[in-house]
């Protein structure tokens, strides 16, 4: 799994490309924590190229969300693919982790 990061006007966009599983989940957590530590607390995780997510991956997203909220900001997810959406819906985590169609729209209204 590959991570990249881009600072936008009002948020930081993190892209997570590949499979978000037990191996890559701690790395996502570390990557996002570093972005937050660097001063960004409004994070969009772009999941456009995340084809698969298991429970560890979901755990990492939850951890990142908690960290962003802790820092006074928020974390939102964008461009969610079918398998990831399925996991979010089954676990009712779609009510906590709000999914937006695109990264640009995630913080579009605030």
């Amino acid at each position: 799994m590959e991570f990249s990061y881009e600072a936008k006007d009002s948020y930081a966009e993190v892209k997570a490309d590949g499979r978000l599983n037990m191996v890559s989940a701690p790395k996502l957590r570390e990557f996002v924590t570093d972005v937050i530590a660097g001063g960004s607390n409004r994070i969009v995780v772009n999941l456009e190229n995340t084809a698969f997510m298991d429970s560890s991956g979901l755990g990492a997203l939850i951890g990142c969300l908690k960290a962003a909220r802790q820092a006074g900001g928020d974390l939102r997810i964008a461009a969610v693919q079918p398998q990831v959406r399925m996991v979010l819906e089954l676990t009712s985590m779609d009510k906590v982790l709000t999914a937006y169609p695109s990264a640009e729209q995630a913080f579009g209204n605030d």
Partner: protein
Amino acid sequence: MVSPTELRRAVVIEDDPDIRGLLVRVLAKQGFEVTHAGTGMAGVAEVRLQQPDLVTLDLNLPDIDGLEVCKLLREFSDAFIVMLTARADELDKLTGLDNGADEYISKPFSPRELQSRINALFRRRPSAEADSASRSELQRATEVQQSLLPKEDIRVAGYDVAGLFRPSRSVGGDFYDWYQTPDGLHLTFADAMGKGMGAALIAATVRAVMRSTGRRQDLDGAFAAASKAIATDLDSSNSFVTLFHARLAAATGTVSYVDAGHGLALHIQAGGTARRLPSGGPPVGAWAGTQWPQSDLLLAPGDSLVVVSDGVLDVFESVEAFTAAVLEAAQNQESAQSASGAIMALAPADTAEDDVTVVVVRRLPEGAAA
């Protein structure tokens, strides 16, 4: 430095939040999955839970002495222990004693120094030994997981109940548990996040807590109390568990249940339709302040309650395809046991990366012998 398949865990035991944060960052950068504790006793519990490869231990902790903690850890852990002390003058004295620690570092320390000392420790351990250590950990995790499954078949008049469990090579956190009650039965079906010993130990906690609340009459209250206890335990490990808990009143066929993030229970009706029971909220431990509603369904004669783990879901494109396949597999089966087998066979053993667990509670058609 670290191959992607090799997961190393570290536990940081340190009361100063700033130093703790720094240690966590440095170790995470080295590829460790890091958890932490702020006191000696919490640290011992964390090491027991995580079974880490590395522990950093502050000598001066608020509750018990770091040397005492080290002694306690050595009773059950063979992790590398790196002891940190703010008093440089203590170093000589410490290193001269056999405290069970592998390395001593004085504060303030540079992240680079810490990194190179840790790398040196891991170079000392031959990789064959590490391999066999991780194999034996998997073996132990499998034993823990197997020990959680119910030992006896369950016999409730008018019902046929069966469960099957197939562990994956890497040991997931699945288990199911059931027991008879004067009214019928209680069923717990859970999947702890992650794999290996960590997941197996969380599963063990969940089983114990769910059993302990079985005597409470109100399911709502029992689940609220249980989830609170489990969430407290999960908090330190940044983990969660999906949990489906149901109580059957055998005389009426009423099943009362609470679903925390599982979402893979089906009510299969005698007429040949399947209704998936959506989860009532996130998994336990995932989100603070969650409350889960209790729901009820009526098992008519010939109906079944089928609970399946996500190891079966993984082979399907969608939840709808999964539901249809489970319905087809469960239909026209002789018994709950054969239905469980047919559902498990949906996830071929050679491709399944996750545990596969299936429980079937079938209400016998009217006139059938129990």
